[in-house]
């Protein structure tokens, strides 16, 4: 029962955020950039402006909807890149060991030692601002934890009987990693990835604040929070609603990841049945 609840709530929240982003152009009552009404700036939530207006009189609700496009893309794509890199490196390092393991370990330690924001900043400086470079920068900087988890899980799985049995059965290394090891570590990797979505959304905010991410007036939840910082007393709604959007996104995807992990576990599946 608990399993279903997590999964359904996660799906529901994730679906709300995704629909908001995809259909922003149809749902949003105002244009997020052009419809700036300076006479009505810093207005509290009302019937005309459900989430109030920001310092330049733009409708916060519309901007949150449009911001979902950027933030979701950043969160999902960067985590996808992170998970792929981290899993590939971690599993192969744990499985093959030897010099490759040493190399990957060294690289992971270096990545953990460099603050990821500084590294992302450096990549952005090279690639220039914009969404594609943002995705690459955030995708390349946060794989070290996934890599560590994938490696340590692989190390313990490698000596399990069924991996040995697969070797005896004449399976190739690639086949063993794909069919025996990967399905068994997908749970923790999935949880890491969903937890990382929130981090990526916030990292995008930080990079946008530093001027190398999404350039204003283009809305993203990150730069909306940044803009609202100065108005925190006068117009708290300008910060609360993008923050709430981030919260719902992170919660939704975490629950979804959790539910999916349970769904992938045959023990849980049969308990439910």
């Amino acid at each position: 029962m608990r399993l279903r609840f997590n999964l359904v709530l996660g799906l529901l929240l994730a679906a709300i955020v995704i629909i908001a982003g995809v259909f922003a152009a149809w749902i949003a009552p105002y244009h997020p950039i052009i419809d700036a009404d300076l006479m009505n700036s810093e207005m509290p939530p009302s019937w005309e402006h459900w989430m109030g207006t920001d310092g330049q009189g733009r409708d916060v609700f519309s901007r949150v909807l449009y911001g979902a496009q950027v933030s979701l893309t950043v969160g999902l794509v960067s985590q996808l890149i992170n998970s792929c890199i981290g899993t590939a490196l971690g599993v192969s390092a744990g499985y093959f060991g030897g010099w490759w393991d040493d190399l990957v370990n060294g690289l992971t330690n270096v990545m953990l030692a460099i603050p990821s924001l500084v590294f992302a900043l450096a990549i952005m400086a090279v690639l220039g601002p914009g969404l594609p470079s943002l995705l690459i920068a955030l995708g390349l900087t946060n794989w070290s934890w996934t890599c560590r988890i994938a490696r340590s899980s692989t190390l313990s799985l490698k000596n399990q009987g069924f991996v040995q049995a697969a070797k005896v059965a004449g399976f190739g290394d690639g086949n063993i990693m794909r069919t025996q090891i990967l399905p068994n570590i997908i749970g923790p990797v999935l949880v890491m990835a969903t937890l990382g979505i929130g981090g990526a959304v916030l990292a995008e905010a930080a990079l946008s604040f530093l001027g190398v991410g999404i350039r204003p007036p283009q809305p993203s939840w990150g730069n909306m929070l940044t803009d609202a910082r100065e108005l925190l007393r006068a117009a708290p709604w300008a910060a609360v609603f993008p923050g709430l959007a981030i919260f719902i996104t992170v919660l939704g995807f975490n629950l979804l990841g959790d539910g999916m992990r349970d769904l992938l576990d045959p023990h849980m599946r049969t308990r439910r049945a």
Partner: protein
Amino acid sequence: MSKTVPASILSVRDLRIGIGNQSDLLHGVSFDILPGETYGLVGESGSGKSITGLSVLGLLKRPLQVTGGSILFREQDVLKLNKRERRRLRGDRMAMVFQEPMTALNPLATVGRQIAEMFVVHRGLSWAQARLKAVEALETVHVPAPDERARSYPHQLSGGMRQRVMIAIALACRPDLLIADEPTTALDVTVQAEVLKLIAELCQREGTAVLLVSHDLGVIANMCRRVGVMDRGRLVEEQDTRALFETPLHPYTRGLLAARPRLGSRTISERGRLTELDELVADTQRGRDAPTLVTPRGMLAEAGR
């Protein structure tokens, strides 16, 4: 006489295994297994039985490595094959059943899928065809309701049932040689008997040779025609099973037989199995200094008949 000697399916010649280039784990072991024969390797823990089996499959773990000798499988030296060729042999022409049925199956895949994988990897069947073959394979190992069981996950099966699945996987491609490393040690006695019977039945039907590695003399006595006794990395005696039990030639074998727990013997704690063994076998007679007693070729011919 020599004409009657059939070609061995497996011929291990002067096999040496060690760490680095020193041969300090296996000091030149030689034995032959004939097609369809069940050959037992018996000995204490650490005598080198398991690494002998693993080296035949080419699965020794570093730092262990073969330092000398040859392993002829179907008259082909497997030690000279490359990694890919050896992998093709594994699972297809030679297979293995492990001691631990609890961990030897992937917990995340249905048993049907795990059997089907063998047909996909080695026979190139489609998944749909392989699934049908998997159900058939479950039927041959006497799993009730095989169609339904194929959809079960390993944790839904008992230990004996899992070992049956392992046997189905091992024998899926009808190998020429099955290496069974303590196949029943983790099972309780009644299930042990069933599993052994199953291995004997299937291998007899398919003409599969079995290398049975065990510390359990009872299992060996029931299953094998010939037995090799290993001690400290040497094959110290090789005999017809009955002859071995009746007239053990090597002092170590006599010690091993005497160390079996018997009804009416003193309790284990009093007896202290290994102490007794050491008393019986003077240390100088064990391992390195012991002469190797190997079956005359004539006996091989007899076993093959």
